[in-house]
């Protein structure tokens, strides 16, 4: 149990990153439409986010600086400001989507009005961040987010074609598809990469490392946290994909309603499974809202040189405190306009592409710089995986916008 408590930062970051409101619908649609043929994208993107997550945690432990500080130092003012604005906008939009998703799931549990639940969710999250120390925030959402494991247990229970699942890990292009479906497949590839590598994950993770005052002796834990946490998140996302291929595809369901994904647990386990899935979704989505709400404030404070961190009392870092509260207030205002959570997610996925190259280039450069890292610079494995991942991100960034518009956000 002690080990589990130690890696809650990784679990919260990964569960919030992999099985947030976007992935619940997105991974399910991927499985329903393309069976197991997109599993490899999750696998490759998981390696990339684990590599960058480990790198950002290592840099935080050695330099005592989170990712956005490094971006400010490495990028010129113009690109730096573009990255800042884009990352804050992405974080606010994603935070709104997660609050909307949480309220929607709570509606399935209580039957209360959506707008009331959205307001209560926001108030509860603000109260939790205000009152709990960072360590307890990550433990609360990291451990309760583990209810999502019901989706992985459902995968075992429904007996998928394991050979087919294993073949899904091999990179492939289903060339036999009609052109429209092939283009949509391309959109799913790019969007999964973007969603798995959402920049707020590394902002949150590295800032969390500074919040927890990691030191060089914590590097082993950092590696474990990054690998185990992100692998767990990836396993859950792949489970949702596999369940959709087995349970939804034969019924012609490509989930378009947030609550449909919970049926993956209801079909094999009945009401108990449904309730576990819905509660897991509440904690995963609200954990992602906390990540994005804080990431927005981390980015602003670190770029502008303000005092920041939950290890300080709110009045000791007033501008940081105002920034995260304002992020939640803005997000709630967006939700209350009535815009759909899934539409918000699509915009966030596309916008985040703008930020991804600017996020990961400074990170990989600093992690290779002996002036900052001394003997803790990247080894050959980290470097190869890091640069290959970076090339993949750049290609995905270039392809994202045309594919988004042609496929109308994957609906084609």
């Amino acid at each position: 149990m002690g080990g589990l408590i130690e890696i809650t930062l990784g679990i919260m970051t990964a569960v919030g990153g992999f099985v947030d409101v976007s992935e619940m619908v997105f991974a399910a649609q991927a499985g329903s439409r393309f069976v197991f043929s997109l599993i490899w994208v999750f696998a490759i993107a998981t390696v990339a986010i684990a590599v960058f997550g480990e790198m950002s945690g290592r840099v935080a432990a050695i330099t005592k600086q989170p990712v956005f500080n490094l971006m400010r130092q490495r990028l010129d003012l113009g690109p730096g400001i573009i990255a800042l604005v884009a990352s804050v906008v992405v974080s606010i939009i994603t935070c709104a989507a997660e609050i909307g998703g949480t309220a929607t799931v709570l509606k399935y549990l209580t039957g209360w009005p959506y707008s009331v639940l959205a307001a209560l969710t926001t108030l509860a999250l603000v109260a939790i961040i205000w009152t709990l120390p960072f360590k307890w925030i990550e433990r609360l959402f990291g451990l309760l987010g583990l209810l999502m494991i019901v989706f992985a247990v459902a995968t075992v229970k429904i007996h998928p074609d394991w050979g087919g699942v294993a073949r899904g890990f091999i990179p492939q292009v289903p060339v036999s598809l009609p052109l429209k479906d092939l283009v949509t497949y391309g959109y799913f590839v790019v969007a999964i990469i973007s969603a798995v590598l959402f920049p707020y994950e590394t902002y949150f993770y590295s800032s969390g490392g500074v919040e927890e005052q990691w030191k060089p002796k914590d590097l082993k834990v950092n590696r474990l946290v990054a690998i185990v946490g992100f692998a767990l998140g990836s396993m859950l996302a792949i489970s949702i994909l596999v369940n959709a291929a087995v349970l939804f595809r034969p019924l012609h369901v490509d989930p378009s309603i947030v609550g449909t994904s919970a049926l993956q647990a209801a079909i094999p386990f009945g009401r108990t499974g449904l309730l576990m899935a819905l509660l897991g979704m509440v904690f995963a989505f609200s954990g992602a809202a906390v990540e994005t709400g804080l990431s927005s404030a981390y980015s602003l404070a670190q770029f502008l040189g303000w005092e920041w961190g939950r290890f300080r009392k709110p009045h000791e870092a007033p501008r940081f405190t105002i920034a995260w509260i304002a992020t939640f207030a803005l997000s709630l205002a967006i939700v209350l306009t009535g815009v759909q959570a899934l539409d918000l997610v699509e915009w966030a996925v596309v916008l985040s592409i703008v930020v991804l190259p600017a996020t990961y280039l400074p990170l990989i450069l600093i992690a290779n710089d002996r002036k900052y890292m001394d003997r803790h610079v990247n080894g050959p494995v980290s470097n190869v995986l890091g640069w290959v991942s970076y090339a993949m991100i750049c290609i995905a960034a270039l392809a994202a916008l045309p594919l988004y518009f042609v496929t109308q956000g994957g609906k084609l």
Partner: protein
Amino acid sequence: MVRKSLLLLAFVAAPLAARAQDLDSGKLIAIRSLRTVAAEAALVVDLRQHGRVTETYAEEMQQDAEDELNGLRKQAEKKNPDLLSITQQAIDAAKASDARALHAIADKLLAMEGPHGRAD
């Protein structure tokens, strides 16, 4: 190396994108959206009848499905009037919690999608 790859991708993606847009994408999206909402509503009704979901969940999901279908009907009025009739049938079936009718509508819409339906 990266720049060359990006240029290559742009050259490949542009004509593909242009060709895909030539096809009647709007109608395919409308049919597909209608098909999946009908199928989702049918699944919830089935599971409710077998006692595998809570009443609150089933009622809220049914309401969401009806809202989605009403939104699709408004879109059909503007862009795809030939889908109005089947959209109305889906709304009526969802209101009546008629799983059999919803399944039949989803099957019919899947057939309308042709080779774009569930290609393996």
